[in-house]
């Protein structure tokens, strides 16, 4: 990797600022060597057969703070929830349309509109914290989420409620 510092990068040039950054980079390098990530990025792929994890990437940057675990998730959203072996929630992230049912296109004047998606495949990522309590992660859809793709589609008469779209172990390998 090369690093071309732009001219405006000179404002970082305060001596103690440079020292600070150099120190963080050193700490990061040590953490890399010690393989002590603070979070894991899980990359999921979905298609007609369901959801699966295609990549697990350790990160030094912490995951974003969990959403409140005591309050129920939003009924119109899909969430990712890390749970303990007993099923207790440890971490929750609300995902922004991870399995899109429509796509956005733009007029040349910048006005967007949506068209139904004909693609049944895609990827999305979730960054979860490294946590000793973590056992598995659940991808769960709220009662107002409507998904056309098999095997996620709800039958019309099905009782609307939160439903699990996928459950994945996190203890496989060093970082889950």
């Amino acid at each position, binding site marked *: 990797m*090369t690093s071309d510092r732009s001219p405006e990068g000179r*404002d970082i040039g*305060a001596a103690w600022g440079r020292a600070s950054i150099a120190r963080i980079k050193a700490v990061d390098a040590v953490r890399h060597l010690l393989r002590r990530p603070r979070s894991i990025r899980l990359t999921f792929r979905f298609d007609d057969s369901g959801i699966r994890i295609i*990549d697990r990437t350790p990160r030094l*940057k912490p995951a974003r703070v969990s959403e409140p675990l005591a309050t129920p998730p939003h009924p*119109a959203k899909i969430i990712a929830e890390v749970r303990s072996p007993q099923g207790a929630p440890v971490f929750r992230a609300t995902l922004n*349309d991870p399995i899109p049912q429509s796509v956005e296109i*733009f007029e040349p004047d910048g*006005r967007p509109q949506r068209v139904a998606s004909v693609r049944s495949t895609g990827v999305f990522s979730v960054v979860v914290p490294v946590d000793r309590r973590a056992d598995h992660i659940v991808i769960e859809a709220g009662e107002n989420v409507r998904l056309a793709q098999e095997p996620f589609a709800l039958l019309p008469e099905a009782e609307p409620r939160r439903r699990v779209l996928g459950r994945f172990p996190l203890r496989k390998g060093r970082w889950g």
Partner: protein
Amino acid sequence: MGVADGVVTGVTQIRDRGPESTSWNLVVVGDGFTSAEQTVYQTAVDTFVTELLASPPFDESIVSNSINVFRVDVESNESGADNPATCPDGTTPFGGAATTAATYFDAEYCSGTVRRLLTVDEALVVTEVNALVPEWDAIVAIVNHYEWGGAGSPDVAVYSLGAGPDVAIHELGHEPFGLADEYESYAGCSSGETTQDNYTGGEPYEPNVTIDTNRATLKWGNRVDATTALPTTTNSDCTQCDTQLSPVPAGTIGCFEGAFYHHCGAFRPAFDCKMRVSSFDFCRVCQDVVHGIVVQTACCFVATAVYGDPWHPDVAVIRSWRDRHLASGAPGRFGMRVLAAAYQWFGPRLARRVLVRPRLAAPLRAAIFQPWAALLRRRAAGRG
């Protein structure tokens, strides 16, 4: 097709504002650029970054000083993208001729729907970027083709050279910033749609659309001037998009009916915003969201670094004060503006200093931040 149709030659950090673990990291990838066209690609990336950093709130120094940019250099075997002769929307290719191109990320127009929908192999993009820049926060893909096109997906915003950066910046608003679309139709205001008259769902999760026009409980109530009427506009004919012009000056924050793909029943915070029309800037409410996520992701807020928890009650109180008084554009006396400028330069550096010297956190917390938060609470209680 795919990885056989090109090669990743490396990654170049074109903007360095600090370690990746304490910065917001944007990664740009290209598709359909041959080895001879790498200069074109580099220029396109520079143009995108320049436009992004000129777009509020990315132009605020505390935000821009939190952003690193990485360019993934990819040489495709052939130039351009797949652009079929026919498409379900009945259009023909720009210039009349269909094109096929062997490119690394398999960029293609149409994708079974409309020609302007331009997609890439997102799984390949994400796995490549995971390996090259594991600390990435957002990915933008630029496709070397002059047909207008673009798309957003959960992880990758795509646009063609023919479309320009505005499309991708709008898509970044969705992911990673979690903003909703503010436009008031699904298929377009002239489509004759009949299913989008009234929004009947509950309060949306997203921070920039609402069904609540109560000043006391409105999500963005802190940004609404006391003299601004709520709702600020209403749509008198819910069978179509509201055609009235804005009754308030540009940039006014209020509640404007028509949002979240519906003509009525859902409100947006500003008459125009990048989440409504991509050629506009983000409105102040969306700017607040972007600002907060970039700065928190980059750990550049001093109080967050000192407490180690962005949601600590003291941090919330101080953040609220900071957003009112130290954010760019906040009103205030000359002295406060000087303080704001000093904070925007000094804050990220002090935060990083604390991160590498955790022993600084406790004394700073006890000597400065806890008394400060207590003072702000007393003042708030006094006003209440």
